[in-house]
C-alpha cells in the first residue's frame, strides 16, 4: 500500500482555494440520488450531516445515544479558537497555523493545519448565525479569552459550556434537515461493521440498541465521526459510551490507523478517589488563566493548604516557564504534575494531586468576577469533592482526555478505503502529537461544515459507483460475521464482568502507555494485554439476551475491541523511538526533561495496516514535509 495524502500543490495559502476549484461538482439535481451515511452526531458528524443535507444529498445519520444532541462534544468546556484577531493582538491565520503546528510538536501536516486555521473564522460566523450565545463584551461585540498554550486571546466561549452550545447549534441545523426529510435519523444505533463492495465503502451494519436487532444500511459514501478512543484507559474524561469500535472495525476492513500512541493527558482534572470510580471529570483549563498551580516544597507535607506559608510553596510552572507560566501546553503541564507527585510532593489523600489556587485572583478581581467566569466549574467541583474552591485550593491531577491518533485520512479526509471518510477526533489529521486547548471544537466543525461537503462531492462526482442495495452479498457476509461475534461473546458465560476486564486493561495502558513510557514497560504491557485478552474470551460474563436492550452486551463488544486496539497502541509507541508531544519515551528527553524529538528518523505519520487476526500489522510511513515552518525544539520558557 502506498499512502498518498493528495496534498494540493502550490503555495500553502492557496492550496485550499485551488483544491476547492479543482474538486468536481455534483449536479444539484443529482445530489438527492446519493445517500451518504454519517455515523456519530458530535460536532463533526452533526455539522457534516446537516451541511450535506442542506446541499441536497440524502443523508442517514446515526448515533449511539438516545438523541443526537448528547454526543460527547457537548462536554467541551473552554472554547473554540479562531484567527479573527478581534482583540488586535496581532493574531492571524498564519499565527494560529503556526501555534497549532508547534503545539502538535511538528507531527501534523502543514496543509491540513493551514486549512483549519483559514476555516476557523467561518466557523464563528456560522455559529453566531445559528444563534450560539457566545460571551459578549458590554458593547455587544464578541468576547475572547486566552487559552492553554496561546499568547493571544483567540478563544470564543459560552460560559463553561462552549461545546454544549456549539453542539446544540449543529443539532438544531440537523433537526431542521430531519424535518425537511433530507436526513433520516437513527438514534440508539451502534455501528458494528463497515460494508465494502468493489473495495469501496458502501454501507454499514448497525445494532438497534433497543431491539437488539441488526440492521443493514447502504449508501454511496460512509462518514465516520465516532470520536476518540480515550476510554481504552477505562478512566478518562470521555463519556461512558465513547469507544474505538467503529474506527477499529474500519481498520480491520482496511483503513489504516495512524499514530494510535498519540494520546493527550489533560492536566486539570479532579483526582481519582476510589476503585468504583467510573470516569474522571475535567476542570476546564481556562481555570489556568487565573488559578496558580503549586505544591508544598517539602515532600510529604500534610498541612492544610491554607497553613502552608508562601515561602514554603513551589509554583513550579511559573518558576520553570516564566513566559508561559501556568498556561504551558497540556502535555507539558501534565508531565510536570506527574514529576512533582513522583517526587512525593503531591497533595491530598492519595498524593496524586497538585493545588490550583484562586486566592490571588479572587483578591485581585473580586469573587464576583471569578464567579462569573468559572461559577459553574466551581460548583461542579464542589459537588464531586465536597470542597469549596472559593475558600480552599482545588486539587487537580492529569487524566486522559483526547486522542490525537485516529484513522489515517488524506487531505480530503478520506481513509485508505475509498468512500470511507473520517472526521473530528476519529481521524488523526490536525493535531500532531499534542492538541492545543480549544482546537478540538474548531477541527470538528471545520471538518463537518466546511471540508466534507466539498470533498465528498468531489469523490462522488469523480468515482464510478455500481448500484448496491442491502441485499448485496457483502451485506449478508458482514451481518453474519457480526452475528457470530455477538454469539461468541454471549457464549463465554464466565465469571468476570465486562467492567472488571475494562478496568484491568485501563490500568495496564495507564501504567505503561500513559504520561511517560519506556521500552521495557511497553513490552511488558504487550504481554499483559495479550494475557488479559485470552482471559476475556474464556471468562467474561455477558448477562441477558442478544435481541434485547442489553447494556452489558454493548460494553462487551467495545471492550473486546479495546483489548485488541490496546496492543496496537503499544506497538505504535514501541515503533516511535523518540519523544514528541503526548508521546514521552523516557529514553528521549532534553536535559530539562522536555520531549526530545528525532526529526531525522521519525518525522512521519505511522499508519498501521491490519493483516489478519494473528498477524503483526504492517506500518506505513507518510513522511511529513515542512516547507513553511522551521522545526524547532518547543520551548515555553
Amino acid at each position, binding site marked *: 500500500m502506498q499512502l498518498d495524502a493528495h496534498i494540493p500543490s502550490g503555495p500553502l495559502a492557496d492550496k485550499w482555494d485551488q483544491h476547492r476549484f479543482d474538486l468536481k461538482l455534483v449536479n444539484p439535481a443529482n445530489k438527492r440520488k446519493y445517500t451518504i451515511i454519517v455515523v456519530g452526531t458530535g460536532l463533526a458528524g452533526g455539522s457534516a450531516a446537516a451541511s450535506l443535507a442542506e446541499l441536497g444529498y440524502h443523508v442517514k445519520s446515526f448515533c449511539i445515544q438516545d438523541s443526537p444532541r448528547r454526543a460527547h462534544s457537548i462536554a467541551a468546556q473552554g472554547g473554540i479558537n479562531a484567527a479573527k484577531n478581534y482583540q488586535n493582538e496581532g493574531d492571524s491565520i498564519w499565527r494560529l497555523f503556526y501555534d497549532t503546528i508547534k503545539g502538535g510538536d511538528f507531527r501534523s501536516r502543514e496543509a491540513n493545519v493551514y486549512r483549519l486555521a483559514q476555516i476557523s473564522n467561518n466557523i464563528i460566523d*456560522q*455559529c453566531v448565525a445559528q444563534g450560539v450565545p457566545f460571551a459578549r463584551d458590554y458593547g455587544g461585540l464578541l468576547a475572547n479569552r486566552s487559552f492553554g498554550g496561546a499568547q493571544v486571546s483567540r478563544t470564543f466561549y459560552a460560559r463553561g459550556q462552549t461545546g454544549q452550545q456549539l453542539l446544540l447549534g449543529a443539532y*438544531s441545523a440537523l*433537526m431542521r434537515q430531519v424535518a425537511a426529510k433530507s436526513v433520516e435519523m437513527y438514534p440508539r444505533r451502534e455501528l458494528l461493521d463497515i460494508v465494502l463492495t468493489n473495495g469501496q465503502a458502501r454501507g454499514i451494519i448497525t445494532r438497534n440498541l433497543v431491539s437488539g436487532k441488526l440492521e443493514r444500511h447502504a449508501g454511496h459514501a460512509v462518514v465516520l465521526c465516532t470520536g476518540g478512543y480515550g476510554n481504552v484507559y477505562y478512566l478518562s474524561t470521555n463519556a461512558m459510551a465513547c469507544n474505538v469500535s467503529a474506527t477499529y472495525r474500519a481498520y480491520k476492513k482496511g483503513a489504516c490507523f495512524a499514530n494510535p500512541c498519540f494520546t493527550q493527558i489533560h492536566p486539570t482534572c479532579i483526582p481519582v*478517589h476510589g476503585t468504583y470510580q467510573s470516569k474522571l471529570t475535567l476542570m476546564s483549563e481556562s481555570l489556568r488563566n487565573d488559578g496558580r498551580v503549586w505544591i508544598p516544597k517539602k515532600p510529604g507535607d500534610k498541612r492544610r493548604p491554607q497553613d502552608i506559608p508562601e515561602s514554603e510553596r513551589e509554583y513550579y510552572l511559573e518558576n520553570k516557564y516564566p513566559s508561559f507560566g501556568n498556561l504551558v501546553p497540556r502535555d507539558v503541564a501534565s508531565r510536570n504534575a506527574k514529576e512533582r507527585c513522583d517526587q512525593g510532593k503531591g497533595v491530598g489523600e492519595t498524593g496524586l494531586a497538585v493545588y490550583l489556587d484562586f486566592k490571588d485572583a479572587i483578591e485581585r478581581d473580586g469573587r464576583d468576577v471569578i464567579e462569573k467566569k468559572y461559577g459553574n466549574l466551581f460548583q461542579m467541583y464542589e459537588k464531586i469533592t465536597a470542597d469549596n474552591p472559593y475558600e480552599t485550593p482545588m486539587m487537580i491531577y492529569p487524566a486522559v482526555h483526547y486522542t490525537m491518533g485516529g484513522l489515517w485520512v488524506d487531505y480530503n479526509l478520506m481513509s485508505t478505503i475509498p468512500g470511507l471518510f473520517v472526521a473530528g477526533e476519529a481521524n488523526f489529521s490536525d493535531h500532531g502529537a499534542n492538541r492545543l486547548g480549544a482546537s478540538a471544537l474548531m477541527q470538528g466543525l471545520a471538518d463537518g461544515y*466546511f471540508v466534507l461537503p466539498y470533498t465528498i462531492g468531489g469523490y462522488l462526482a469523480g468515482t464510478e459507483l455500481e448500484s448496491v442495495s442491502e441485499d448485496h452479498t457483502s451485506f449478508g457476509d458482514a451481518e453474519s460475521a457480526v452475528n457470530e461475534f455477538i454469539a461468541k461473546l454471549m457464549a463465554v458465560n464466565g465469571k468476570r464482568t465486562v467492567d472488571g476486564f475494562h478496568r484491568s486493561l485501563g490500568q495496564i495502558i495507564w501504567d505503561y502507555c500513559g504520561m511517560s513510557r519506556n521500552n521495557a514497560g511497553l513490552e511488558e504491557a504487550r504481554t499483559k494485554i495479550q494475557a488479559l485478552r485470552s482471559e476475556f474470551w474464556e471468562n467474561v460474563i455477558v448477562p*441477558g439476551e442478544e435481541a434485547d436492550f442489553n447494556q452489558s452486551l454493548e460494553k462487551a463488544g467495545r471492550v473486546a475491541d479495546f483489548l485488541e486496539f490496546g496492543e496496537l497502541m503499544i506497538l505504535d509507541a514501541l515503533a516511535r523511538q523518540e519523544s514528541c508531544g503526548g508521546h514521552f519515551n523516557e529514553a528521549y528527553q532534553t536535559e530539562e526533561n522536555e520531549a526530545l524529538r528525532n526529526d531525522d528518523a521519525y518525522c512521519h505519520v505511522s499508519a498501521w495496516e491490519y493483516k489478519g487476526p494473528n498477524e503483526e500489522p504492517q506500518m506505513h510511513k507518510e513522511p511529513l514535509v515542512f516547507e513553511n515552518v522551521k522545526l524547532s525544539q518547543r520551548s515555553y520558557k
Partner: protein
Amino acid sequence: MTKDIRLTLKIWRQEGPDTKGRLETYSADGISTDMSFLEMLDVVNERLTLEAKQPIAFDYDCREGICGQCGCVVNGRAHGPEKATTLCQLHMRQFSDGDTIVIEPFRARAFKVIKDLVVDRSPFDKIIQAGGYISANTGGAQDANTILIPQDTAEKAMDAAACIGCGACVAACPNASAMLFVSAKVSHLALLPQGRPEAPIRVQAMLHAMDQLCFGNCSNERECEADCPKEISIVNIARLNREYIKAGLGYSG
C-alpha cells in the same frame, strides 16, 4: 468524611414497553459516600451480574451533568433530592446509613418506558424539529461581529440555552407538560436578533408539536423549575406566553 453506608433500594423493573412493571427490593451494602449515584447503581449491577441476575437498565453517558442522558425519579424527585444536580452528579453523601431509596423512571404519557429506568425521550427531538432552530444554511454567514448583542441579552439567552433536554421538567410536572423545555428553546432564540425573523412561527409550531406529542399543558405548578438540574427559570415560560400572544397578533418584533 468518606464512609460506607448500607441502603435498601426499591427499583422499578420492567422488561419492555408493553409489559407490566413492579418495584423490586435490593440491599446495597458497603456504598462509599464518595460514589456518585450512578456509580452506586454500577456497583449493584456488578453484583447482580455475578449472581447471574439481570442488571438494572438505566441511561447515562457523560457523567458530568451536561449530556442530559441520565435521569430517574429518586424518592419522588426527578434527579433526586439535591438542587440543581443531574443524577450523575448526585453523590451518595446526600444519603444516610440505613436509608431506603425508591428509584423509578421519568413517568409521562409522552415518554414510553423502554426497559427498567430507561425511557424514550425522542418526542423532545420532534419538538425541536418543529422549529427549534434558526434557518441558516452553512456558508452564508456574515462576519460574526456585525451583529451586536447586548451582554445582558446574550446572558439571558445563555441562561435559557443551558437546558440539557433531560426531561426532568416533564417528570416533575403533574400535567407531564414540556413547557419548560419548549420555553427554554423559544426564549434562547427569541432573545437573539438572529432568531427574531422566525420567532412567531417557531413558538406556534413548537407548542403545536408539544400538544400533538401528548404532553400536558402548563398550570403554573412550578415543579419543573424546582427539579430542573440546570435551574432553567419559569420566566422563560412567561416569555414563551408573550411570544405566543404576539405571534397570534401577527407581530414579529
